[in-house]
């Protein structure tokens, strides 16, 4: 109990530090933007981690939900005159609803079959975004209205650094709450032994669906922040490659580790900037780093480091 609590608060403190310290030290909107992007994608990866690391289900189409959140924020106010807050809420709710409707049937699939079905779902969403040019601007993308709170326009990277950092923090708190709640225990139980979980009264289909919907909602919220940070969105935000990137963040950071999602997002986000100087070999190095991390830390960075730290303390 005490260990659980201390590790929980340690993790939260760590995240708070990771948000606050650079936020105060960095004064360039470029760094703040990189930070905000890490928080935003870390947030989506966090949701996906609930699905992959806890419910044990893979999704290769989660960028689709990011796209739904992002495009709802842009399309509804621009073309339908919605209040932007209503549009944001609708985007998040819409993603959850679609996940709920689609998740029922496709979560019956297992392993690679599920992977392909979610992949197809993600591609369908991104295809609609690219093709409905009238509403979405097609491949050129579209402008996103700026968020105004009490007459104050939130548009700089600094604003969004703090907002997305705060959202991430709350997301982590919520994820931790969930994991330690009866729902979380049910999910973890399912992941370890679906049969045993079943005999204890846990309805596997229901809990997989819950995890799918929750992860879709996380992705959509991340999409909303992404759209508002950028002020202009393109179908790239919902692309298959983005979905793969999210899965990579989760696995590299550590499946089933709350901090893992953030670390995975940070690694990919920072690598992109670090390697930009050497763009001739950027792709090559990125690929090799991904391979190396997975070969030498197959449980992901955070769980591996935790184990190292833990065993050192023990000895």
């Amino acid at each position, binding site marked *: 109990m005490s260990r659980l609590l201390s590790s929980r608060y340690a993790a939260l403190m760590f995240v708070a530090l990771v948000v606050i310290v650079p936020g105060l030290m960095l004064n360039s909107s470029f760094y703040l933007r990189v930070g905000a992007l890490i928080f935003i994608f870390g947030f989506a990866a966090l949701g996906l981690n609930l699905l992959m690391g806890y419910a044990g289900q893979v999704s290769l189409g989660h960028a689709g939900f990011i796209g739904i959140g992002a495009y709802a924020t842009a399309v509804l106010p621009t073309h339908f005159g919605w209040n932007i807050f209503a549009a944001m809420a609708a985007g998040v709710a819409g993603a959850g609803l679609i996940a709920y409707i689609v998740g029922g049937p496709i979560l019956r699939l297992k392993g690679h079959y599920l992977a392909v079905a979610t992949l197809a779902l993600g591609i369908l969403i991104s295809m*609609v975004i690219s093709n409905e040019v009238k509403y979405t601007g097609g491949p050129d993308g579209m402008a996103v209205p700026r968020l105004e709170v009490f007459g104050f326009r939130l548009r700089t990277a600094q604003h969004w650094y703090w907002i997305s950092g705060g959202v991430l923090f709350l997301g982590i708190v919520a994820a931790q709450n969930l994991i330690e709640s009866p729902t979380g225990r049910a999910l973890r139980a399912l992941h370890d032994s679906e049969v045993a979980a079943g005999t204890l009264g846990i309805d596997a289909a229901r809990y997989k669906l819950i995890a799918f919907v929750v992860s879709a909602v996380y992705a959509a919220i991340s999409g909303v922040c992404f759209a508002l940070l950028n002020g202009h969105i393109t179908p790239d935000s919902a692309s298959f490659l983005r979905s793969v990137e999210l899965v990579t963040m989760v696995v590299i950071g550590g499946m089933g580790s709350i901090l893992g999602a953030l670390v995975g997002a940070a690694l990919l986000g920072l690598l992109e900037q670090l390697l930009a100087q050497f763009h001739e070999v950027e792709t090559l190095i990125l690929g090799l780093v*991904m391979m190396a991390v997975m070969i030498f830390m197959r449980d992901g960075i955070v769980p591996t480091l935790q184990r190292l730290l833990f065993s050192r303390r023990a000895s």
Partner: protein
Amino acid sequence: MLLPRNLKALCRLWVADRFMAELLQFVISGLTVGAVYALVALGFTLIYNATDVVNFAQGEFVMIGGMVSAFAYAAGVPLMFAAMLAIIVAIIVGLILYRFGIEPARGASSVVLIIITIGASIAMRGLAALVFDKQFHKLPAFSGEAAIRVLDASIVPQALWVLGGALVIVAALWLFLTRTLFGKAVLATAANRMAAQLVGVNTSFVMSFSFAASAAIGAIAGVLVTPITFTSYDVGTALALKGFAAAVLGGMGNPLGAVAGGLIIGLLEALGAGYVSSSYKDAIAFMVLIGVLMLMPGGLFGKAHTERV
């Protein structure tokens, strides 16, 4: 050309009907593209069977096949030798991938292995951009460019090479897996690695072999399709995506299923583009894919209990 004479005569009665000609053209297009997907799916199948790994770098083998042969040919190497060189290079890359990417991570979860292969595919793409360039390249068609008329539809001779190649490879693979001792060793390794080891199968060799053979299949596919589709350092991703979908649609691990899956997706795309909407033709293919999986969760030819994830 494709049909026996009497059937051809029969069909000619309908040729006046443009519908038939159109349909035939769509089917030809679908089969050509589908054969490309099928070849990629076959590569997925072989590696999956022997190692349980879903190799997302499979598309890169196709790229290597295309790029190496195109550059060798452009440098004056005869087409035949250029193709052989490409296959050898792909096999070497496949073996390196297995030895330094997959083997050290043996026993890791399937999603970790998938990320490793995705990393490998990114690295291979980056390397290809360095070694070659970022432009598109081609190979000459093996039997000329002149389209063959079939009942008012037309087909390029290279498409027949692709279709024929897919058929030959699937037949060879099928015979190899079911009729040879070594092929059975591959299947045994797939079914139960430990048990296979116990009965004396050198599973490590079987797994290296599967990577080499998949790389070779990919490279052959690359050589065959480059005259039609061209090649560049980054053609792999899109091919891997469709190939994976095809392999799963057919039932992961089943070579015949892989071919069927590839052809079906190709046909759906072509018929969708022809009859419904060209912007949403991929959507149609993917919706049918989801629909089929709903009804047959193990794919068309897969067995539900062979699920290994």
